[in-house]
């Protein structure tokens, strides 16, 4: 969920066990073992890729920070005798690190940061979280604990005396921290420089001590103030550097700290990449590439992006969601064994079992394909496994080629559409990608209007666009694009010739184009209509004809290559399309689930006796369900006596009517007890609470249903 602090994710179950889980559902004819292995290797690949991407994205930020940290104290150490340094108040160097609104994602950044710092600047780093530091005392304890432990980590040889220190109850005060620091730095000075790995950090006499406040917003004002005041008094003996992790805006520093305290700090601001850009990069590198055989369907991608944009802004969650898609796909789709690199496809296709071949025949896209073949081939496909395998291999290769082409042409189209005013097909490439995945993009209105806009582009834009397209196509791995590139280059030379031929005439034309380009969508239609009129009457200029040619050519490319994946045969093998399952997993609705469970127990219990249709209340349902259904019929305040009456009526309905008659006014003790228990269960679930207005009533806490 949004910046919820999730408990650390469970360790992946050991490989044998998971493989077994894959298998337990179906017999082994469906290559479960292989599927599991493929899934794992694919995920490790993707994981390392994402880590690489994130490292690259954070590099700039981390470099700046390291720069800042290494600069912060050296100044004072170098020229302590100078007048300005003596006169200046010695402030605590502080980095305000604005990391965006999702707190869970910060962990990764901080981990990267502390690794980098450990290698480059200082071994003394403490990470503090607000939940561990309700008071200054806890903060100091935590700080000292981390610093002194880190000493153990780095200098594992000097274990003994460090352990001794931690065994004694250390006085958690600044003075003991200072004496620790002095002893540690003295020790490192006397060491031989070649001894340890991080000799680079030893280049200074006294490496700074870095204290990172992970979630600045959650710290209480008092703790922060006290800590800053204390440490500013000892800044000369203990070179502290603070790093504030900020989720909202740096204004929070001024809100939390009064001027008397913030004047003790020397704050510099560092801003991380916005999470939207981060996501774009991830999508660009993970999804819009033919490196990975696994693909997300349009709806699924939409679900993931929606969760990101609407709820949490968490790139980590997006990647987790992607992981879930992979696991779910390999688990539920027996044919996903073929979702592998192209080099392995052949071997795997030929080792398919008969059951798997039947699975292929059952695929809707494959059936569609079969129906379009001539009858002889149809029979062959449906009866001979070997023929089917040959055909499958060919189809899979086609699919692979389709992907390669798809990505390149998508990028070209994006170059075109992202330069149009108002972005009818979306500003980001992910929007375009979703649009293309879901349906034939050339049938949509947005596409139509963007082509019309493209027909009005001026020459410079058009030329730069074409050049970009050429670059994209040249760098793509697809083999089919030689001709396309040639064609585009031809267009470019034609434009050039045009320029040379008619320079003076062009002036008037382009000025007219400029005018048209500035118009907005509303005026566009009008101009278009006028254009149509004029087109009939006036002969087009050379430039205009050429422009039409270019746009038409791009249109033809789009129609050829950007076919939605659903239309491709065997797309089920590599595309994961179960959006509803994913939504159920990632965007859970606890309230709805609870209502379903209580209102319709059959849904979860799968007991035939509980199956009921209509609004009736079955007496076989669990007590809490009966009570729940009865309470739905009540208003805000519920009379307990009436409720009990209704409950006993429902419960007794099945029993013999004569027994009922005997004690009609006296409710059975057992039923009474059952009722009380059910009501208290409802209270525990938060549906009702005791009311102070009337003693024999309870108040409903939910609305609806009545």
């Amino acid at each position, binding site marked *: *969920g949004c910046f919820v602090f999730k408990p650390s994710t469970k360790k992946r179950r050991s490989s044998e066990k998971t493989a077994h889980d894959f298998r337990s559902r179906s017999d082994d004819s469906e290559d479960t073992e292989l599927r599991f292995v493929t899934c794992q290797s694919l995920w490790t690949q993707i994981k390392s890729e994402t880590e690489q991407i994130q490292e690259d994205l954070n590099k700039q930020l981390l470099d700046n920070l390291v720069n800042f940290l290494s600069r912060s104290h050296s100044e004072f150490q170098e020229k302590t005798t100078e007048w300005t340094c003596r006169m200046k108040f010695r402030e605590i160097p502080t980095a305000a690190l604005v990391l965006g609104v999702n707190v869970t994602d910060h962990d990764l950044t901080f981990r990267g940061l502390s690794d980098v710092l450990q290698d480059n600047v200082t071994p003394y780093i403490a990470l503090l979280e607000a939940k561990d530091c309700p008071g200054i005392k806890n903060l100091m304890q935590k700080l000292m604990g981390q610093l002194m432990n880190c000493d153990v980590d780095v200098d594992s040889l000097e274990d003994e005396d460090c352990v001794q220190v931690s065994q004694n109850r250390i006085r958690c005060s600044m003075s003991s921290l200072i004496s620790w620091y002095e002893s540690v730095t003295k020790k490192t000075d006397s060491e031989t420089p070649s001894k340890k790995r991080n000799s680079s950090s030893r280049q200074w006499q006294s490496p700074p001590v870095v204290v990172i406040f992970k979630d600045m917003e959650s710290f209480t004002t008092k703790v922060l103030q006290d800590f800053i005041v204390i440490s500013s008094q000892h800044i000369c003996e203990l070179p502290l550097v603070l790093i504030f992790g900020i989720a909202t*805006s740096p204004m929070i520093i001024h809100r939390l700290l009064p001027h008397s305290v913030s004047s003790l*700090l020397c704050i*510099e601001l560092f801003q991380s990449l916005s999470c939207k850009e981060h996501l774009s990069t991830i999508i660009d590198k993970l999804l819009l590439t033919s490196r990975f055989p696994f693909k997300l369907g349009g709806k699924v991608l939409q679900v993931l992006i929606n969760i990101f944009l609407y709820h949490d802004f968490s790139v980590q969650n997006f990647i987790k969601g992607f992981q879930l898609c992979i696991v779910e796909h390999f688990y539920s789709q027996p044919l996903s064994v073929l979702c592998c690199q192209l080099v392995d496809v052949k071997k795997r296709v030929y080792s398919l079992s008969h059951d798997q071949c039947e699975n292929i025949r059952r695929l809707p896209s494959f059936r569609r394909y079969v129906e379009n073949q001539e009858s002889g081939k149809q029979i062959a496909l449906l009866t001979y496994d070997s023929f089917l395998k040959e055909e499958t291999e060919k189809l899979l290769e086609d699919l692979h080629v389709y992907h390669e082409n798809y990505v390149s042409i998508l990028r070209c189209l994006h170059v075109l559409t992202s330069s149009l005013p108002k972005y009818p097909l979306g500003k980001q490439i992910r929007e375009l990608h979703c649009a293309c995945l879901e349906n034939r993009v050339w049938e949509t209105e947005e596409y139509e209007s963007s082509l019309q806009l493209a027909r009005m582009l001026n020459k410079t834009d058009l030329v730069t666009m074409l050049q970009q397209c050429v670059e994209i196509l040249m760098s793509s791995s697809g083999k089919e694009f030689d001709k396309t590139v040639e064609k585009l280059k031809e267009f470019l030379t034609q434009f050039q010739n045009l320029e040379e031929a008619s320079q003076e005439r062009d002036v008037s034309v382009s000025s007219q184009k400029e005018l048209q380009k500035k118009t907005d969508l509303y005026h566009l239609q009008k101009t278009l209509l006028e254009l149509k009129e004029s087109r009939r009457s006036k002969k087009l200029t050379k430039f205009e004809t050429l422009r039409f040619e270019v746009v038409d050519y791009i249109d033809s490319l789009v129609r050829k290559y950007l076919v939605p994946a659903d239309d491709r045969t065997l797309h089920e093998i590599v595309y994961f399309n179960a959006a509803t399952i994913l939504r159920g997993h990632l965007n859970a609705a606890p309230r709805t689930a609870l209502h379903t469970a209580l209102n319709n127990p059959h849904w979860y219990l799968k007991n035939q006796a509980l199956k009921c249709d209509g609004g009736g209340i079955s007496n076989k349902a669990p007590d809490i369900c009966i009570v729940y259904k009865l309470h739905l019929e009540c208003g805000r305040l519920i009379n307990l006596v009436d409720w009990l009456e209704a409950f006993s009526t429902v419960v007794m309905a099945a029993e013999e009517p004569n027994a009922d008659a005997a004690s009609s006014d006296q409710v059975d003790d057992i039923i009474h007890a059952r009722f009380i228990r059910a009501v208290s269960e409802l209270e525990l679930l938060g549906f009702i609470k005791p009311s102070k207005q009337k003693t024999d009533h309870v108040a409903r806490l939910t609305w609806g249903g009545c």
Partner: protein
Amino acid sequence: MPNLEHPAYPAADLLHLESLVPCRESQVSMLLSIFGERQQFSFPSIFIYGHTSSGKTYVMQTLLTTLQLPHVFVNCVEYFTSRLLLEEILIQLQSSSSDTEQTCPVHCDTLNDFVRLFKQAVASRELQDQTLYIVLDRAEQLREMEANILPAFLRLQELTDRNVTVVLLSEIVWELFRPNVGCFEPFTMYFPDYSIGHLQKILSQNHPPEYSADFYSAYINILLGVFYMVCRDLKELRHLAALNFAKYCEPVVRGEANERDTRKLWKNIEPHLKKAMQTVYLREISSSQWERLQHDGGEPGQLKGLSAHTHVELPYYSKFLLIAAYLASYNPVRTDKRFFLKHHGKIRKTNFMKKHEKTSNHLLGPKPFPLDRLLAILYSIVDNRVAPTANIFSQITSLVTLQLLSMVGQNDQLDGPRYKCTVSLDFIRAIAR
């Protein structure tokens, strides 16, 4: 000239002391007369108060060190529990007495122990013939420790039966200290703020060696002219003086003006100082950034201050939740129906107008609202249907951790939690765009 005079101390020391504490001569001589001679018992406790940087700590420290009076100096913010505080006093006592033997860790949990250990420490130091001074800086923290700490320190002389004087330094008046059960009244003493003349004198004292005292004092004069209105903190002023001095000297270094050319120098520095007041002084940009800017000769405009980055990117629904919370906080409940229901009845205008509050709701501050109301408003302001998923609820909690909302009353979660919106109208306007 009230020269410091005291028969017990050598005149040279007193003269040196006087040069170190400019503008505080009268307070020092007062303290000296209270202290008396080394072996004489002094007043049991002295309470000194005055504004930030009116020289309390500095004067006490210089006085005690120059005259070499035995003393212990402790900051109560740093030693935040009574145990730490008491132990620190004992450690300082021990370490100053015997530098040969290793100080053994002291354990002192209660005042009773403290008195016992204190007697031991004093005995081992053979200090019976001299007054020992215990200075507790930022003494207002003592009020937050155990109730017996402050009264005990006030009559420590009596409790330990030793020649000891406790000096409390604080920024607040004694009346706010006095426990309601009563205690020994200390001798209170006020350190008044430095006047502009005092500041000028003190700041001019430390001129850089390369330039003459007159030149620097002219600079200080200009500096005070700009900053005296907003800042009287000596430390801060000295910091600012050091930061901007390089800029002041620039024309002299370049040879465009000589040291006497005050007008030219003033023209050069004045706008610069004004800019500094808006940026460095408020810590919008840091001092090191400011220095670098000066060095490169760039315009401060290119560097955006902290407050310039007010924009917060929020997820779609978080934005709506925050807007809904704002509406719930500042709109009265009875207008909800009118604002958020499609088919509200006709409002009886006269009735409504009569009741209309005179004061704006924005002046009254945010009011708490229950969760239900927040969600109801959310559902009505978001165009499409919102499923009450776990993600929505978790966003409310995360808004609380980001301090954009705050929870009112820490009662049971099931019992209908109440929230308050803590952001300003400007912030809401920015995210609503």
